[in-house]
């Protein structure tokens, strides 16, 4: 059992993949808890894919890919805001418009430039096994920064999540808090996608926090549980990928989602068991 767990992390390369994966899981879980609580999952998905045109252009014009992705994310959030204010449609309509538009733009740019096509798979599924030490350091910085921001902005975020109007009357600024949350979300996505791909970023952003909300009620506990679950998914995913010879990033994402359904079943079975007892007691009495 011990070697089953340690063998997969014996080499420098797989250790780096593990550390990078754990840092990504911690970052996305902290932000993801707010995403799940506030129902921003669609926004997260849209952002994860909407960074594509920025990446493609950065690649073509030879500037930093992370900057391109950030610019793309900013443009996207701005666009969504604009649509929502000017067109008076629901927020998910605005997100959907920008999501499709940005993704289409990205694919069009890529299809014009043949040589980039191969990297599209890397964009979606990442290369957690090809992580460089410099990327791990950067990921660590982002993880620490996210932790600090989430702690510092806990109260505004909490107010924003439960009663936006009341938050405004209490003298807080919900619009600013919302913007900060989106910025954190964009940062988590942009810093992580090069390591694990957009598919896994989104998987780790939503699945561990969603699982955590099945298990615990209080938000700080949900965040901690989510980080633990995300890390567990990374470890198990990499271990399974090693022993079963499956693609690494997809396995981690799969485990993260599987956790949710296992937790759901366990909770429901537990409720069923707990729910039957009073009935039996009533029948007996």
């Amino acid at each position: 059992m011990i070697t089953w767990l340690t063998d997969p992390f014996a080499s420098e390369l797989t250790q780096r993949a593990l550390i990078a994966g754990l840092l990504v899981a911690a970052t996305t879980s902290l932000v993801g808890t707010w995403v799940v609580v506030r129902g921003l999952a669609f926004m997260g998905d849209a952002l994860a894919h909407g960074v594509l045109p920025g990446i493609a252009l950065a690649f073509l014009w030879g500037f930093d890919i992370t900057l391109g992705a950030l610019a793309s994310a900013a443009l996207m959030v701005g666009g969504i805001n604009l649509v929502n204010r000017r067109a008076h449609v629901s927020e998910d309509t605005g997100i959907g418009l920008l999501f499709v538009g940005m993704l289409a733009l990205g694919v069009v740019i890529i299809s014009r430039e043949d040589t980039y096509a191969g990297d599209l798979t890397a964009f979606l599924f990442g290369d957690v096994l090809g992580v460089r030490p410099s990327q791990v350091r950067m990921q660590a910085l982002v993880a620490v920064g996210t932790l600090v921001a989430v702690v510092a902005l806990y109260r505004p975020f909490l107010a924003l999540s439960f009663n936006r109007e009341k938050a405004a009357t209490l003298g807080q600024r919900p619009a600013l808090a919302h913007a900060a949350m989106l910025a954190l979300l964009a940062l988590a996505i942009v810093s992580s996608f090069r390591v694990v791909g957009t598919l896994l970023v989104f998987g780790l952003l939503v699945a561990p926090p969603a699982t955590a909300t099945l298990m615990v009620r209080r938000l700080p506990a949900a965040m901690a549980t989510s980080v633990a679950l995300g890390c567990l998914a990374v470890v198990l995913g990499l271990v399974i990928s090693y022993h079963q010879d499956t693609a690494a990033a997809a396995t981690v994402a799969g485990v993260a989602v599987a956790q949710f359904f296992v937790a759901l079943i366990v909770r429901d079975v537990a409720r069923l068991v707990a729910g039957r007892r009073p009935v039996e007691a009533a029948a007996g009495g």
Partner: protein
Amino acid sequence: MRIVLDILPPVSLRAILTPKLALSLGAVALAGGALGACAGGAGSTVEGPSIVVTTSVLGDVVENLVGDQAAVEVLMPRGADPHEAGLSSRQADDMSRADLVVINGAHFEQGMERVIESVEADGTPVFAAADHVDLLTFAEEHERQQAAGAAADDEHAAGEGEGEGDKLGGDGHGHDEDDVDPHLWTDPRQMATATGALSERLAEVDGIDAAALGRATDAYLAALAALDAEVEQALAPLPDADRVLVTNHEVFGYFADRYGFRVVGAVIPAGTTQAEPSSSDVTGLAEVIRDTGVPAVFAETSSPTALARALADDVGDVEVVELFSESLGEPGSGGATYLEMMRTNAERIAEALA
């Protein structure tokens, strides 16, 4: 179970670890464990240095050179489309611990490139076959083929060749004209050059007997020379005018350069070799077939069906012949080894164009 739970930071989380949560976590861990436990721990049992090879074609060459002196692991399975290949954690791990990693290079291993770079940066020696031969760019290939087409005094005028040249380059993995063509193994003489360089590199690996390696190398180089002669002989009945290859994906550039063929690539949707051709793609291909008057179109064993089906529907009277292109086939398929694959290809081409 306990091991998994111990991964959790003990102090902060114990406080929130309610029985219900513990139960759920345990179940999650159990599910993961059960998934992983059915893994066959098939570790390598061969003694000696370990060599990891990306493509099945190069894997065959390495195995011929080192025999049982080293454990050889081939990453891309036979019959698979190499552009789709992604790596598992174990494969990346094997690569990083290998005594030598052998790759084709020239961006052939697109899906593995970052891992290969990472492994190399960590200090694992990597041998790229493409670094040791004179590579052609796609543009150079087209030029040479057109020159060959013009020299051939026949009904296919040079002007026609130029027009076809415009249709080239839009194939499955999106080549730019300035990109080098990585498919060097389609010419046995290029392969011989690469084999010589590979042998020299293998001789530096600890635990490989130089004398045995030398003998194996000489034998394999002789086999490659024989193969070249054999292919030439098999194709001899074809006059220059008939040496036209219509393919769905530009793989046979070096083959064409060696044996005096013109390659007329047909357009398959960009991005992936697995995509369904659109109707305009099929129309384009049908046009090329009519222009060139070829009796057969060559598909690849690793991605054959889409093209074959579309053509059968649209053109009707054209034969679709499968060639081994980027991957070896299963034993008994006629392409189980590099030598066998090249012989089979030559026979099929000679037969189809006769």
